[in-house]
């Protein structure tokens, strides 16, 4: 462990820890844009500069490893001035076309507000790039809001392992592009949305959620697709799932999700959802079953459940318990599968229960 002082507070951190992380552990917040704990430190935005005793100029705390007896100051009038300059420079090359982005306050805007920089005053007067410049159905690309923090590039490389994004040109002309300056899918994007999750400005955003507004609640749950068991946050507004966001505390996946987990949720509110019990007309009329089983009729729950119960009980009584088969579901809860098992074995009296584990 290395001992150092941050704002006069003694801090202990393992060797190799950056000053930014060490400060975070000590409860001291240092503003940053390009840094993210999941990603390799970059040192690009320079917002996180701190004064270190013995150094003439401030140092980027996101890349500076802790050293014994280091004395760090994270905020001072000079540092405030520096941060303000950085934010002014960043925003001087930023353009907000004014559309609804449903992101609330982005990290960039949060720091701008904190340091008293008015984006409207300093930002560009006209766009440098087309708004919505990529046809990807899930990912909204508006490079006018890009601040070249490269979090998208690192997220794609270091989390998804796909290397879709990269920097092209250099200096002031530097841009983030997909592949060899093509569209995302052509650059072999898998639409996992990691780049969106890590973007601090809204340059990358969820296309499906763009104009749906801010959620009124966020519920952490487990994904319904594969067996990996990712956790994610369902963002709900007025009883609708409007967006899926990463939950950094998800034990299996952290911030990461795949295309289905992050963007495969619109089936939930799909118009074809079954919302009323249905029985075949012949069952209501007590007539023999016609070929093709006949028409569906919407009924109330009691009617449907009674009919189903009588048919299943009747079959069991007439042909024996093993004439009934029960198929549970690998999509459903443990609790529901347990009940299906109990249903087959206790209520019907058969071991004819299975699910699609094999398929």
């Amino acid at each position, binding site marked *: 462990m290395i001992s150092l002082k941050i704002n006069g507070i003694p801090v202990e951190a393992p060797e190799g820890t950056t000053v930014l992380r060490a400060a975070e552990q000590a409860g001291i917040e240092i503003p940053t844009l390009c840094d993210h704990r999941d990603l390799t*430190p*970059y*040192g*690009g*935005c*320079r*917002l996180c*500069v701190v004064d270190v005793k013995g150094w003439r*100029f*401030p140092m*980027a705390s996101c*890349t*500076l*490893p802790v*050293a014994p007896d280091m004395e760090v100051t994270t905020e001072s009038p000079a540092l405030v*001035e*520096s941060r303000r*300059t*950085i934010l002014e*420079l*960043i925003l*001087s*090359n930023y353009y907000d076309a004014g559309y609804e982005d449903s992101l609330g306050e982005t990290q960039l805007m949060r720091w701008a507000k904190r340091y008293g920089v008015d984006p409207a005053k300093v930002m560009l007067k006209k*766009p*440098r*790039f*087309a708004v919505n410049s990529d046809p990807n159905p899930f990912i909204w690309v508006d490079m006018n809001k890009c*601040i*070249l923090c490269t979090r998208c590039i690192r997220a794609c490389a270091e989390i998804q392992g796909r290397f879709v994004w990269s*920097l092209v*040109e*250099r*200096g*002031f*002309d*530097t*841009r983030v592009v997909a592949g060899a300056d093509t569209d995302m899918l052509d650059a072999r994007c898998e639409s996992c949305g990691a780049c969106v999750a890590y973007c601090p400005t809204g340059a990358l955003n969820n296309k499906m959620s763009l104009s749906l507004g801010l959620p009124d609640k966020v519920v952490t749950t487990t994904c319904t697709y594969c067996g990996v068991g990712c956790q994610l946050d369902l963002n709900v507004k007025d009883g609708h799932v409007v967006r899926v966001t990463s939950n950094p505390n998800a034990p299996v996946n952290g911030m990461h999700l795949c295309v289905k987990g992050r963007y495969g949720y619109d089936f939930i509110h799909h118009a074809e959802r079954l919302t009323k019990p249905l029985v075949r007309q012949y069952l209501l009329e007590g007539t023999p079953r016609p070929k093709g089983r006949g028409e569906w009729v919407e009924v109330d729950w009691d009617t449907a459940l009674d009919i189903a119960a009588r048919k299943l009980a009747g079959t069991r009584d007439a042909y024996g318990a093993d004439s009934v088969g029960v198929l549970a579901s690998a999509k459903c809860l443990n609790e529901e599968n347990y009940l299906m098992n109990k249903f087959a074995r206790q209520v019907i009296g058969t071991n004819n229960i299975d699910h699609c584990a094999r398929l």
Partner: protein
Amino acid sequence: MKITRSMVLVSSDPLSLQRGSLEIYRRFQEKLESYQLAEEVALSTITDVGNTEASPVVVIYPEAVIYGPVQPENVDRLVSEHLYKGHIVEEMLVPKRHLPSRMAWLQSRKGSLPAQQRILLARVGKIDPENIEDYILHDGYQALAKALSKMTPQQVIEEISKSGLQGRGGAGFPTGRKWSFVASAPGNKRYVICNADESEPGTFKDRVLLESDPHAILEAMIIAGYAIHAQEGYIYIRGEYELSQKRFLKAIEQAHEYGFLGKNILGSNFDFEVHLHSGAGAYVCGEETALIESIEGKRGEPRSRPPYPTTHGLWGQPTLVNNVETLANVPPILLHGAEWYRRFGTPSSPGTKVFTILGNVNATGVIEAPMGITLREVINIYAQGMKNGAAFKLAQTGGSSGSLIPASLQDTPLDFDSPRKAGVSLGSGALLICDDNTCVVDLVKVLLRFFRFESCGKCTPCRIGTQRCYETIRAITEGGGQLSDLDGLLRLAEQMERLSNCGLGQTAAVPIRDMLKHFRTEVEAHIRLGICPTGICRMVPEDETAELIENQMV
């Protein structure tokens, strides 16, 4: 380059002027003419002498003697005795007790000026650079042989440390100390990298060394490898330097044939290989960590430091990065010893420095002079004065990362310490001498355009700051400047210097700062009066503006 034999400097500080130094200067002109010495003796003034009872003084090179107080009637005797016959006029020398510290350094010049001191350029033009035998005949590989047979790696480092050699890339870090850092850093492998990505505008000394004496650099790399326990070295040569690359490759090949490279060099059990890596057109790769990134097949974006390459360099291993000129000092130091080396230059900056002289002067080119030389000396002795007799206005040192030195500071010695104190930077050794037809705003605009073009784009202050500074200065040259811009520029420049990730962004601020410090009136004239005093700036928008931003417009 034609070199003048002697130089006379007449003090022209206010006190001297008051005591009639102008008349002394005039008398010298007259007498040199009449003795037909004007061709071989340079005459100039010196301002930075400090107040002394001995004013006015006259300094004569190469003997570096200081006469004073000198009266106009003494001039005839100084010319006839000293300059014509070669006898120092002892009784007219300034008494030691009257020599202020501001002048004492001039004495260290004794015997060293105006003739060039050739340590690094000793073989340039004298040997066939593609012939290793020619090199060997001229002391080649003797330093290596000495190191491998008579010295431990530790002793090699000690000798370099004792010599006081400082890195010639610009920062002036003590070379011996760097070597010992790398030698003692933990790692599986170590690397030597020779930084030959010479891209500072106006600097081509490395090219001259590589093209004319490639084996000297190669020998130094091998010695460095031995000293720091490395088995592999890279030389990163600028992509545009095709001839340098060709000759260096040939040198590597020949060194292999002669057993100076490869396994068990000279029977010492020491193995060393050198790879040549070509740059591909990026100034920023002259920054050592960007250079390492570039070798690793990445964009040349400088890393954050610490950690430094000495511990985390190429492929994450301890790496010694030295500039070509720095390495060129190594073989002579080992061969002749640190004591010998310390005879050149100043006590705090020993050795010689290779300068490239450019701009509005009569002679441009490469020179090698002791550390501590002054700009005035350079202009008058080596550059043979200003072209067309125009007045010297300013010099820009060290390529684009250097500073602007106004005429008033031309007596500041160019070494690693003095310029820092005076706020000027030695940098890479390029000296762009500008006459009074140069518009400082136009010049700084060109410098900022360069930084904007060469910024890697990684960090905010440099990427956007260079652009904004460029835009502001350009607006001034196009008649669109505001007085308030100047404070904004200064503030931005200061923040760029504080916040940038590497030297590029930091030094981009220097010309702005220097311009506003030394030439503010001229800048303000553009804004207040709407005119360019030198008539260079057109004061109307130019189409170039559109060109520079066209590629990011929708």
